[in-house]
């Protein structure tokens, strides 16, 4: 799992450091921000070369400055770091692999080999599968899809070259077999070689090269002659075929012309058709006008009915005069009733206001309005005043009595003052003083009793007056309530009367409304039927017109075809050529062709003889070359050949087995991974990937088989990304996947789905770490919730970029 990428003077960066995390990592940024540079730095570090820029000079940001790329990763609980470098002169150097800080491989090839073993992925497979470089989508879409996917997979597995090796191995095996057969034959011939050599010497003497050259020259001459004869035969053949084709075409022309000529006189029919077409056109125009009028009337009727339906029945005006007069009278009566109702309502309001005012007034004020009570109150007030006067007199008297009693007590014997009469100031005897004191007391008690009686009397008078006033108020309120009740009763009568009149009118209005609506509907129906009748008539006439026009067109076409046939016939028979001369011409050409064939056969026979002579000469030469070779040497040669044959057979068989196992194993496994990935992404009910031919791929959706070409461009682009994901699982064990711009050609929905698919694959553990580079910020933010993926926004901050 990648942990950190550090680059110096690498492509887009002077210096940069990026931390990566497990799961989905997204390098997000605009064009030129350095996304691809970072992915290629990883590819450079892990595979020893970036896939896109093989020229080392293009990798350095600044010329004449060293390049340094370091990638830290974790594997099986240990920390590893791989470092790759280029010198200022663009030479490889400084490649290093460290485990836990200790160096364990140095040098480019050694580091690459160690990484292959460590990661379990061959370098070329890493570059082809686990790293999808930018532009792969374009290349994939630009190729025919079936060929592209097939070539892609075969390229991934190295099957193309393996097939070439298989072919070569099989050929070697065959040829070695032939050699053995020849050698066996030679061995059998060894016994006869002396005889053969003697015969050869007799036939060719010592000038083998001269004989061979002569034979080869003869064969060459024969070959040239055969070629010329064959060309002549071919020419005759072509001419004969042309004549045959001309004859066949003439026969077809004549047949067609005969069929066309069997038709009735076209001119009369054409004139009749033109007249009929004009009549029909005029009639159709009239029908169109009538149809337009009917349509307008129907539209007006519909609008009138809708307007009528929208109106209240009470707004309608009857067309019957008596009904109209009755409606007017009823309306007047209702108006009068409404007026009366309004009056009663006003009266009720006045009564209510008067009652409220009455209830709000103090009852004592009401007494002034009632004469009897007013007299009663005057009398009571006079009595009260008399009582008050009397009470005052009693008070004064009681005051005098108190002073007298006080005086008498102050002039009691032994009190210091001489007892005198309080009135005459004459000496007062004691008994008289006592009696006077007793009388004063008795009188005071009598006056107190009288005062109390006067008070009670006064209260009684006041209470009597208040009760009378309250009774008066109650009586007046009762009168008001009775008046209101009478008004309510009258109001109810008036309203009932009005409701009766209104109901009568409304019932009549509703009936009138229904009748008018029914009339409108009937009118519409009538107009619609008229429209239909007109349309039907029009369609019929249009059909007739079209048929007439078709017939007219057919007649014209027929005439044109006849003209064309005549022209073609004239072209087929140029000059003095006639259909009658053509068979003779054909017979001549066929005879010439047969002669050429015979000549060709004779030449072939001569060539066969020359070839046989040459083969015999070669055999003699071979025998001559073997002259002096012993049977033991021949046996050794056979032994060496048997060994070569065994090795060739083993090589061919092992190659064929390898090819078969890779096709049946790795390719089938790869297809299965891709099928699973595509099924999950596409959410099709049933997905199968069918292999046919040499591993060509088709997608099955349920019972329907789709070629890849039938998928949309976006679906194919997604398919490519899933192909890498599936193959990454198959060949890279899901450890790492680098995808550069996988969202190209995908709409926002499919882009989000692809990201979510990769995220799910990471979450489920199918892929441990995926690093993608993309410019699609909206798609990324729409697909991934915060924290679900490690999003690295580029361009990097100055600090990170400068470190």
């Amino acid at each position, binding site marked *: 799992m990648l942990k950190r990428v550090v680059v110096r003077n690498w492509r887009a960066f002077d210096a940069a450091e990026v931390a990566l995390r497990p799961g989905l990592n997204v390098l997000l940024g605009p064009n030129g921000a350095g996304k691809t540079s970072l992915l290629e730095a990883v590819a450079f570090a892990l595979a020893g070369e970036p896939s896109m820029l093989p020229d080392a000079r293009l990798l350095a940001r600044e010329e004449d400055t060293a390049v340094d790329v370091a990638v830290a990763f974790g594997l099986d609980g240990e920390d590893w770091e791989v470092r790759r470098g280029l010198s200022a002169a663009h030479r490889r150097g400084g490649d290093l692999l460290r485990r836990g800080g200790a160096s364990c491989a140095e040098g480019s090839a050694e580091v690459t080999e160690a990484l292959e*073993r460590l990661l379990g992925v061959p370098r070329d497979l890493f570059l082809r599968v686990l790293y999808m470089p930018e532009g792969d989508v374009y290349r994939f879409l630009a190729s025919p899809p079936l060929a592209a996917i097939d070539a892609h997979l075969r390229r991934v597995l190295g099957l193309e070259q393996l097939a070439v090796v298989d072919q070569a191995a099989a050929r070697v095996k065959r040829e070695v077999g032939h050699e053995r057969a020849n050698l066996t034959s030679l061995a059998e011939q060894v016994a006869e070689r002396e005889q053969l050599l003697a015969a050869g010497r007799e036939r060719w003497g010592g000038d083998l090269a001269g004989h061979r050259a002569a034979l080869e020259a003869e064969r060459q001459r024969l070959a040239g002659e055969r070629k010329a004869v064959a060309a002549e035969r071919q020419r005759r053949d072509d001419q004969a075929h042309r004549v045959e084709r001309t004859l066949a075409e003439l026969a077809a022309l004549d047949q067609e012309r005969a069929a066309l000529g069997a038709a009735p006189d076209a001119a009369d029919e054409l004139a009749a058709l033109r007249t009929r077409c004009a009549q029909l056109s005029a009639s159709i125009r009239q029908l169109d006008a009538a149809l337009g009028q009917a349509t307008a009337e129907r539209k007006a009727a519909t609008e009138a009915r809708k307007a009528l339906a929208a109106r209240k029945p009470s707004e309608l005006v009857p067309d019957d005069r008596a009904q109209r007069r009755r409606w007017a009278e009823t309306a007047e009566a209702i108006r009068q009733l409404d007026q009366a109702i309004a009056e009663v309502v006003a009266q009720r309001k006045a009564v209510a206001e008067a009652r409220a005012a009455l209830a709000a007034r103090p009852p004592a004020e009401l007494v002034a309005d009632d004469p009897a009570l007013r007299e009663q109150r005057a009398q009571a007030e006079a009595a009260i005043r008399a009582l008050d006067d009397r009470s005052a007199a009693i008070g004064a008297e009681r005051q005098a009595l108190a002073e007298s009693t006080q005086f008498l007590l102050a002039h009691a014997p032994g009190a210091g003052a001489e007892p005198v009469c309080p009135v005459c100031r004459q000496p007062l005897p004691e008994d008289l003083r006592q009696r006077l004191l007793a009388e004063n007391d008795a009188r005071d008690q009598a006056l107190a009793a009288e005062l109390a009686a006067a008070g009670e009397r006064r209260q009684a008078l006041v209470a009597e007056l208040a009760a009378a006033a309250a009774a008066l108020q109650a009586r007046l309120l009762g009168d008001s309530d009775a008046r209101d009740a009478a008004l309510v009763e009258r109001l109810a009568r008036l309203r009932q009367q009005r409701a009766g009149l209104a109901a009568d009118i409304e019932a009549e209005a509703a009936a009138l409304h229904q009748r008018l609506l029914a009339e409108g509907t009937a009118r519409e129906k009538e107009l619609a039927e008229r429209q239909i009748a007109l349309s039907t008539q029009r369609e019929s006439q249009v059909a007739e017109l079209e048929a007439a026009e078709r017939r007219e067109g057919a007649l014209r076409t027929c005439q044109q075809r006849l003209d064309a046939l005549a022209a073609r016939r004239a072209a087929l028979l140029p000059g003095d050529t006639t259909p009658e001369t053509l068979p003779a011409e054909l017979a001549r050409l066929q005879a010439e062709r047969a002669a050429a064939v015979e000549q060709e056969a004779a030449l072939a026979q001569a060539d066969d003889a020359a070839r046989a002579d040459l083969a015999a000469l070669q055999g003699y030469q071979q025998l001559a070359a073997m002259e002096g070779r*012993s049977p033991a040497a021949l046996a050794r040669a056979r032994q060496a050949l048997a060994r070569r044959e065994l090795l060739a057979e083993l090589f061919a068989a*092992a190659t064929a087995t390898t090819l078969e196992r890779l096709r049946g194993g790795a390719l089938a496994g790869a297809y299965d991974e891709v099928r699973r990935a595509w099924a999950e992404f596409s959410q099709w009910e049933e997905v199968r990937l069918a292999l046919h031919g040499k591993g060509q791929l088709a997608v099955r959706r349920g019972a329907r088989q789709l070629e890849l070409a039938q998928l949309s461009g976006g679906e194919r682009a997604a398919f490519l990304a899933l192909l890498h994901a599936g193959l990454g699982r198959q060949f890279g064990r899901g450890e790492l996947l680098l995808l550069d711009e996988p969202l190209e050609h995908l709409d926002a929905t499919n882009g989000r789905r692809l990201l979510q698919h990769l995220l799910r694959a990471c979450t489920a553990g199918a892929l441990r770490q995926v690093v993608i580079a993309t410019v699609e910020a909206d798609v990324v933010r729409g697909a991934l919730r915060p924290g679900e993926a490690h999003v690295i926004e580029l361009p990097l901050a100055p600090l990170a970029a400068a470190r």
Partner: protein
Amino acid sequence: MPVPPGDVPPIVQPVAVFRAALAELVGRERSARSRRPERLAALQALSDTDQAALVERFEAALSGPADAATLTGQLHAALRALCPETALDDEEANDA
């Protein structure tokens, strides 16, 4: 500090598949009875070095030319180099 033994899956290693297939074929060939004495001798003489050479040749062919005819010539040459014909000794020359 050496790198631990590799775990490259043989499924993606054509050379490993070839090596295994070759070993199987040799075993099968040896268990079969051959009537031809030359074949039998060739089989008895077949060594691990020969098999390694074939594997090496296969690996070279995988990165060799994509043209079957050229590759055929190269394979022929390689096999001839593996199976040279010995020169005639004096006795044989006299016999001849």
